[in-house]
């Protein structure tokens, strides 16, 4: 599985857009980029998954350039409740295992 690199931590204020970038230089052709969110004392929660270009859902957008060696999770107008750890993962289409790194701790202040 491709290794990912993302910032350890980020700070933001309420109402701002937050972009978290992840690099995955060794991504394979059949790999997908997936992001999870984890609040304290809870298990991780799936946010979004994409293969190329742009994916958007009600929570976030995921931007993937043509070379797919990086991706950016975009959280529009964050609130205090978006304070969490965000994990970037590269997974096989029908992969059985997830490899979690240390994630990015996002702190949102008022």
């Amino acid at each position, binding site marked *: 599985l491709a290794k990912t690199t993302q910032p350890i931590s980020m700070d933001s204020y309420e109402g701002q857009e937050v972009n978290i970038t992840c690099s995955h230089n060794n991504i394979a052709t059949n790999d997908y980029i997936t992001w999870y969110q984890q609040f304290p004392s*809870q*298990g*991780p929660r799936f946010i979004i998954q994409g293969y190329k270009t742009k994916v958007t859902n009600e929570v976030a957008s995921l931007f993937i350039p043509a070379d797919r060696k990086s991706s950016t999770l975009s959280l529009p107008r964050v609130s205090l409740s978006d304070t969490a750890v965000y*994990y970037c993962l590269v997974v096989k289409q029908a992969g059985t295992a997830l490899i979690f790194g240390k994630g990015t701790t996002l702190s949102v202040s008022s």
Partner: protein
Amino acid sequence: DAGITQSPRHKVTETGTPVTLRCHQTENHRYMYWYRQDPGHGLRLIHYSYGVKDTDKGEVSDGYSVSRSKTEDFLLTLESATSSQTSVYFCAIRRSILAGARYEQYFGPGTRLTVT
């Protein structure tokens, strides 16, 4: 809610005692997983199951065994608990994101285990 529960939610036990954690799902998913989460390590896969009586090891399987005699239950056993197994344990199921295509893992609420 995917209907995944873990029991117990909290447990304190002594070194050398056996401990079994239970993961229960209500949606008949084939794949189930056990992870542990420790400060500075993120989540690490212990064991997973791809069907009744079908299991495989993960990254940190030493000291742990699992069993799956029914689709809905996946048990994690620490045969002789050690202090290094103090951790938060998460169970997860694999479920489809889109019909027939991609998957996500859906996590349970976790079990906090302390070995003294």
